[in-house]
C-alpha cells in the first residue's frame, strides 16, 4: 500500500511526519526546520507559504493569511467579534467565509490546502516518492463542519484524507508508543488557536478515549492579543498614535507581543521594542512575567472548566488520573503548567516536544491504517452531542457527546398532515436545550409518498464515522426503499465547489511552481550575497587582490540575475559566485581555526 503521511495542520505551525522503521519522524524542510508556519502570502510573483510568507505579514498584511484554522467551517457571523484583529478582507459566499487576496477570493479550505501542498512537497522531496494519502489532525473539539472543511482542504491539495484524527488522541498515540503506559491519562493541548482536553484509558495497546472537551477558540493567539492590546493602548497614550490605521504596524505589534510572551516563559522580565510610523520614534515597554500572568490568568482559567467537565463525563476525579501529558506550544507557559499541576495534583509530562508530538501521533495512526502497526488501536469519541430540531425549536439528542465512534442511531419520522410529501429535518450539534443555541450542521428534506398523516414511516440512520464526520441515510420502511439524501451543509462547501477548487488548484499549479522556484532562488541568492559581503569585509586582507576582484564581479552578476525573473540564471550565478569566492571562504575558515587555537592551553586542544 502506498505510503500514508501524518499531518498536523496547526493554527500557527504545521508539520508532516512519517513512520521510519517503527519510529515516527518529522520531516524537516530545506531550511532544516520542522515546522512550517501556517502562513500563506499572495505576492506579485504568486503564492508563497511558510517561513518566506511570514516575512510578508508586515510587508503586505492585507494579502497574507495567518491563523486560517480559526475560520475553517465558519460563517462570517461566527467571527464578527474578532474581525478587527485581522488585516485581510473577509466576505462570505454560501455560508462559507472567503478571503479577498488581490483580485480573487479563497475559502479557508483553499488556503489550508496551500499549506498542505507545502507539506506534501516536503514529504515528496524527502522520501523521493509521490505522496497522495494522509492522516490529518484536528482539535478534538472541532465540530462536523470544521472536520469536513479540513477534509476538503486535503482533497483540494491532492491528498486523499484517509482519516481525520483528534490532536490530543494523536499525541497520546505518540506518547503511549514511547512510554508503553497503561492506565488513565489526561492530555492537555493548548496550541496557537485551540484548546482540547482528552481523558484516555490505555490498556494492552487500546487507547480508549473516555471523554473530551475543549474550546476551539482559545489559544496562544488570544494571549498575544491581550499583550498587543496593552501595547496599542500605551502607544496611543504616550505617542498619540492609533496604529489601527497602519495594518503593517498592527502585525508588527502582534508579532512582538508573541515574542515577548515566549521570552517570558524563560525569563522574569523582558523589554518589547517597536518602531513607530511617521517618524514618531520607538516604543519600548518592559513587561514582567507577573504582569503577563495577571493579564492572561483569565484565559488560562478558562481551560480548567472543560477539564472538570471532561473528568465528570468520564466519571472520574483528578485522583484517578495516572499521568498528565502536555501538548502544544502554549503549555510552555509556566502559569499553564502550574494550573494544570494544581488541578490534577500531578507533575505533568513534557518529555516529548510539545510542538511535534501531534504530528508524530498522526504518523503512528497512518501506520496503523496502512497495516504496519497492528497492536495499537485508537477508540475515539464524538466531542459534541448530535441532535435534530423538534417541534417548538427544541433539540432532541440522537447521539450523545463522548459516545465512542463509529456511532450510529436510528430515528423514525412520519407526517402530520394528510398527503404531506416531505419532512424537513434540521441536524444540530451542541449541548444546549434550544435548537437556535446549537450549531446548525445541515438541513434536508425527506421525500414521502402522499398518504394519510402518520402512515408513512421513514427511518433515518445517523452514522458518525471514525473521522467524527456525520453520514445520513434514509429508508422508507413501508416500501423498503432507500433514498439518497442531499444534505445541504449549513457552513460548508458543496461537492461542486470543492470540485471547482481542485480544478483551480491545478490551473494555478503550473504558475505556482515556476513562481515558487523564482522566489526560492531569490531568497537563497539574497542570503548568499549578504554572506559573501560579510566575508569580504572580514577577510579581504587574507587573499590576493585578483581573487577579491573576481569575487566582486561574480557578486555583481548574481545581484543582476536576482533582479531578473529566471530562476535558472540565478542558480547559475550562485554557482559562479561560490566558485569565485572559494579561496576567500577557505582563507576565512583557516583564519578562524588558528584564532580559535590561540590562547588555549595545549591540554585543551588535544
Amino acid at each position: 500500500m502506498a505510503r500514508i503521511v501524518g499531518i498536523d495542520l496547526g493554527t500557527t505551525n504545521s508539520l508532516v511526519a512519517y513512520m521510519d522503521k517503527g519510529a515516527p519522524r518529522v520531516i524537516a524542510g530545506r531550511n532544516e526546520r520542522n515546522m512550517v508556519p501556517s502562513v500563506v502570502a499572495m505576492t506579485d510573483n504568486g503564492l508563497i507559504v511558510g517561513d518566506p510568507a511570514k516575512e510578508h505579514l508586515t510587508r503586505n498584511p492585507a494579502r497574507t493569511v495567518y491563523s486560517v484554522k480559526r475560520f475553517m467551517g465558519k460563517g462570517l457571523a461566527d467571527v464578527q467579534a474578532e474581525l478587527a484583529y485581522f488585516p485581510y478582507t473577509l466576505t462570505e459566499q454560501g455560508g462559507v467565509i472567503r478571503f479577498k487576496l488581490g483580485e480573487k477570493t479563497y475559502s479557508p479550505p483553499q488556503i489550508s490546502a496551500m499549506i498542505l501542498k507545502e507539506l506534501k512537497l516536503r514529504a515528496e522531496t524527502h522520501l523521493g516518492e509521490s505522496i497522495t494519502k494522509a492522516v490529518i489532525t484536528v482539535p478534538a473539539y472541532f465540530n462536523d463542519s470544521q472536520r469536513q472543511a479540513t477534509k476538503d482542504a486535503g482533497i483540494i491539495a491532492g491528498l486523499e484524507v484517509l482519516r481525520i484524527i483528534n490532536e490530543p488522541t494523536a499525541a497520546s498515540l505518540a506518547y503511549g508508543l514511547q512510554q508503553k503506559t497503561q492506565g488513565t491519562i489526561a492530555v492537555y493541548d493548548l496550541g496557537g488557536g485551540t484548546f482540547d482536553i482528552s481523558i484516555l484509558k490505555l490498556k494492552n495497546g487500546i487507547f480508549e478515549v473516555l471523554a473530551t472537551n475543549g474550546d476551539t477558540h482559545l489559544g496562544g493567539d488570544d494571549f498575544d492579543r491581550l499583550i498587543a492590546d496593552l501595547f496599542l493602548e500605551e502607544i496611543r497614550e504616550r505617542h498619540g498614535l492609533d496604529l489601527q490605521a497602519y495594518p503593517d504596524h498592527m502585525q508588527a505589534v502582534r508579532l512582538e507581543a508573541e515574542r515577548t510572551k515566549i521570552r517570558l516563559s524563560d525569563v522574569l522580565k523582558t523589554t518589547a521594542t517597536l518602531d513607530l510610523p511617521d517618524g514618531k520614534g520607538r516604543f519600548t515597554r518592559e513587561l514582567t512575567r507577573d504582569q503577563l500572568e495577571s493579564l492572561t490568568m483569565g484565559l488560562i482559567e478558562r481551560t480548567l472548566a472543560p477539564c472538570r467537565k471532561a473528568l465528570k463525563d468520564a466519571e472520574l476525579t483528578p485522583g484517578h488520573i495516572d499521568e498528565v501529558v502536555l501538548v502544544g506550544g502554549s503549555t510552555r507557559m509556566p502559569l499553564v503548567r502550574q494550573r494544570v499541576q494544581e488541578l490534577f495534583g500531578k507533575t505533568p509530562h513534557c518529555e516529548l516536544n510539545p510542538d511535534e508530538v501531534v504530528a508524530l501521533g498522526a504518523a503512528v495512526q497512518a501506520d496503523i491504517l496502512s497495516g504496519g502497526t497492528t497492536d495499537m488501536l485508537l477508540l475515539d469519541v464524538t466531542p459534541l452531542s448530535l441532535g435534530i430540531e423538534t417541534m417548538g425549536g427544541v433539540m432532541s439528542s440522537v447521539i450523545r457527546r463522548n459516545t465512542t465512534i463509529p456511532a450510529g442511531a436510528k430515528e423514525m419520522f412520519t407526517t402530520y398532515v394528510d398527503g404531506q410529501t416531505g419532512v424537513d429535518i434540521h441536524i444540530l450539534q451542541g449541548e444546549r436545550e434550544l435548537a437556535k443555541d446549537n450549531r446548525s450542521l445541515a438541513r434536508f428534506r425527506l421525500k414521502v409518498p402522499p398518504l394519510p398523516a402518520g402512515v408513512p414511516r421513514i427511518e433515518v440512520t445517523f452514522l458518525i464515522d471514525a473521522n467524527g464526520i456525520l453520514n445520513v441515510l434514509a429508508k422508507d420502511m413501508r416500501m423498503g426503499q432507500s433514498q439518497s439524501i442531499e444534505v445541504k451543509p449549513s457552513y460548508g462547501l458543496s461537492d461542486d465547489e470543492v470540485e471547482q477548487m481542485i480544478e483551480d488548484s491545478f490551473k494555478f499549479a503550473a504558475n505556482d511552481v515556476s513562481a515558487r522556484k523564482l522566489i526560492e532562488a531569490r531568497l537563497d541568492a539574497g542570503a548568499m550575497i549578504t554572506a559573501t559581503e560579510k566575508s569580504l569585509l572580514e577577510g579581504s586582507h587574507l587573499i590576493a587582490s585578483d581573487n577579491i576582484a573576481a569575487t566582486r564581479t561574480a557578486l555583481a552578476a548574481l545581484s543582476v540575475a536576482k533582479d531578473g525573473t529566471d530562476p535558472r540564471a540565478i542558480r547559475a550565478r550562485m554557482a559562479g559566485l561560490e566558485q569565485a569566492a572559494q579561496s576567500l571562504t577557505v582563507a576565512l575558515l583557516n583564519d578562524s581555526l588558528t584564532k580559535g587555537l590561540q590562547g588555549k592551553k595545549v591540554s585543551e586542544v588535544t
Partner: protein
Amino acid sequence: MARSMCWHCQSEMAGEYFCERCVKVQPVSKDLDYFTCMGFPRRLTIDPRQLETKFYELSRAFHPDFYQNKSAEEQTISLGNSAMLNTAYRTLRDPIQRAEYLLDLEAGAVKDIRTSPPADLFEEILELQDTLDEYRAADRDSGAAATLCAKLQSERTTLERRQQDMEASLQQLFTQWDALQDRGEATDRARAERDRILKHMRDILSNRTYVKNIVNDLVATIS
C-alpha cells in the same frame, strides 16, 4: 452468529463473525441482541472487566482502522459492526441501561401494564416543584430564600437516599432474575415469577427516573 450464509463466497457460515472459508468479515445481524452480540447470556450481573475485554477484542476485529486496505463492502460492514458494537457496549456497561434494555427485550409479558409513579411519590414531586419555583422567584439574598434553600437541601438528601434504596432493590431483583434464568425452569410458577420480577423492575426503574430527574433539577437550581 452472523447470517447463515457468507455474503462473499456464499458458503454456509459456521464461524461467528468471519467466514471460515474466505475469512471475510460478516455483518452483525440487525436482529441480534446486544447480549448475544457480545457473547454474554441475558443476565443482569455482568463482570465489567470481562465485558471490557470482550469489547476490546471485538473492536480489534471490527474497527475501520483495520479495513483500510479492504474492499468497499468490507469497509461498510466494518463501519456498521463497529457502530453496533459501540452501542452494545455502552448499553451493557451501565447496570441501569442494561436492565432497561433487557426489559425492552423481554417486554412481551409486561408491556401493556402502564405504570405511573405511586401516589406518595407523585405528591412529593409536585410539592417539590412548587418549592423550586418559589426559590427561583425569590430574591437570592432574602431570608425567605435561605429558608427555602435549606428545605431543598434536606429534600435532596431524602431523595438521594430514596434513589439509593431503589438501586438496592433493583440489585436484588437483578440477582433474582439471574438465579431464575440459571435454573432455566419452564414451569408456570417460573413464568409467573419471571413476570413478577420484570414488572417490579420496570416500576422501580421508572420511579427512579422521576427521582433522578428531580434531583438533577434540584442540584442545578441550588448550586
